[in-house]
């Protein structure tokens, strides 16, 4: 692989981590969704590049799913849901932006240390891809735990899932990548849009998870 090819792959994977960071400090739902669309778009580019470099045409399918489904359909649908539910207000963070960013930096450092240390044998591209992918996964987890709003938790989960797709495409020749990305898309489409938001709306007139927390299973 030429060094240019490597650099471009590196650029895309790095941009994905950057986009994850951008999600960390968004305080409006619409803005968060826009950044998520960007995140998915970068993923699509990255996957398409991997498909080209590895000469694996089936990965183009994964790239297409990322572009059409994750970067366009899901954000648009969530936009409409937010509008219909009238919840386009600020997102409540559990902890402040500064602390969240610091934690994010720590997580990225952690994933670099872990992944680069355990994969000296693997080829450079796969190594770095894995390290970036783990960063994106951990940042996705961070988004999920620092947000109270159901929609932003879902966005966090979807960004986490993007990290997994990055890892799966980085592992050269991995079978079932397309199937797995389809399975994930089904998971997201099924639950998130179809059922939960509508049911939560139906019952609570809110998609704030804190509203759910009132209903502990064990009150007398």
């Amino acid at each position, binding site marked *: 692989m030429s060094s240019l090819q490597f650099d471009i792959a590196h650029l895309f994977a790095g941009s994905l981590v950057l986009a994850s960071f951008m999600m960390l400090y968004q305080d409006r739902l619409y803005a968060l969704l826009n950044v998520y669309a960007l995140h998915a778009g970068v993923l699509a580019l990255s996957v398409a590049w991997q498909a080209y470099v590895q000469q694996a045409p089936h990965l183009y399918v994964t790239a297409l799913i990322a572009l059409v489904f994750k970067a366009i359909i899901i954000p648009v649908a969530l936009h409409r849901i937010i509008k219909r539910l009238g919840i386009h207000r600020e997102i409540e963070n559990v902890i402040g932006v500064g602390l969240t960013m610091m934690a994010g930096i720590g997580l990225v450092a952690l994933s670099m240390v872990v992944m680069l240390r355990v994969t000296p044998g693997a080829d450079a591209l796969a190594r770095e891809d894995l390290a970036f992918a783990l960063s994106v996964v951990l940042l996705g987890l961070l988004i*999920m735990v620092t947000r109270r709003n159901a929609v932003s938790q879902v966005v966090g989960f979807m960004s986490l899932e993007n990290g997994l797709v990055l890892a799966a495409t980085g592992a050269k020749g991995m079978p079932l990548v397309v199937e797995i990305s389809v399975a994930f898309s089904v998971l997201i489409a099924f639950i998130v849009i179809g059922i939960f938001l509508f049911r939560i709306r139906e*019952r609570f007139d809110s998609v704030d998870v804190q509203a*759910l927390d009132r209903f502990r299973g064990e009150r007398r």
Partner: protein
Amino acid sequence: MTVDALAAILLIPAISAALLAILPGYKLTAKLNVVAALATFLTSLSLFVIEPTSGQYLLLDDLNKVFIVLTTFVGFTTSVFSASYIHHEIETGRLTPAFLRFYHAMYQMLMFAMNLALIANNIGLMWVAVEMATLTTVLMVGIYRTHEALEAAWKYFILGSVGIALALFGTILVYMAARPVVGEGMDGMVWTVLVKHAAQFDPALLNVAFVFLLLGYGTKVGLAPLHAWLPDAHAEGPTPISAVLSGLLLNVALYALLRFKMMLAVNSVAITPGPLMVTMGLISVIFAALMLYRRRDIKRMFAYSSIEHMGIIVFAFGMGGPLANFAGLLHMTMHSLTKSAIFFAVGHVAQVKGTQKIAEIGGLTATNPALGWGLMLGVIAIVGLPPLGIFMSEFLVVSSTFARAPWLTVFLVLGIIIALGGLFLRIGPVMFGEPKGKTAPAAASYVPMFTHLGLVLMAGIYLPPVLVTGFQNVAKLLG
């Protein structure tokens, strides 16, 4: 291609799921659900007679044979219980026929997903199956659409998704470790190929992979501190689903974990997963045992008891060796049978009394003797009193540990005793206290419950030699 028994185990639930989604009339579909589950169970029994060939996608060995038979058996008995359970739910209007159609289709989908996870010879396919099982149970947990059910389903969805996401990352890492040795493509994910070559895999990568897999599938097993979804999901979903969750789905996740443990065992340089599993198991046992004391909801209480028992099982498999593995396997079987029997009883109790709150249920043995004594027998079994099967398996776990790491038994026995105290403390008034709540006779089907309890009792007194040799083979396989 002829359809062999392995394919049939998948096809029967898949086809019946489609059928049940279309057919109207809950009485018919409930019966059909039972028939489909029975057919799957009988097919799984045929695996002992005619050995189908394993391929690149499907695999059959001694280990998953045990799991498959247990899964299809409890799946069948639960479908019988479910038929009488939903009859009551329709009458009280908690579920509508449209929801029931969905419920039955999902039930068969769940059976399909669990069977697929058990016989998949491909770690990617196994992951997809576990994801599918999670998805179907999330939908079923939320089926009552009450506040609590929605909260439980949401929590389960979020935590379950994070769990399976971590498991996928671990799976990818395993592939990365395998690629330099077995080459690119499908071989890098085929279970039988992986085990054969695992000795040459990069140990550092395998270690990291196992940590992710343990956290990921461990969430689904319900190990503390990743258990938060489990009590809610058990308490708020329909009771047949609680029975299947406790009795089967936790086992399926454990099975995935055991598979990867076997792979690591082949590689002599990689970490031994044992100590990690022993630690998480012990934490789960003691934590869940302490949590039993403050339960107010009867289904939640037994959910915590499930965490405790999964802890014991993971502990036993973590200790490893033929005897501990045998004990773990036996305990897993006994726990599945007993816990689902308990949920069968609890489901009818909650229907008769119209509540799940322990404080509002009392004097069951006086008002509904069959139900009350059935539940009491189940509780006696689950806390591990002789002569029932769980006593024997717990005794085996403790005695095999005592020979190798005596100080660990202190914690284990402590946890078991604390749990015994907690369960008896809570269940006492429910059984023998002043009769409270409605005292209508239960329109229950006692057959599934007493079948399970009968099997557990029999196992406590006499284990058939066939079963013993079978389990011994599996225990050897697990290393």
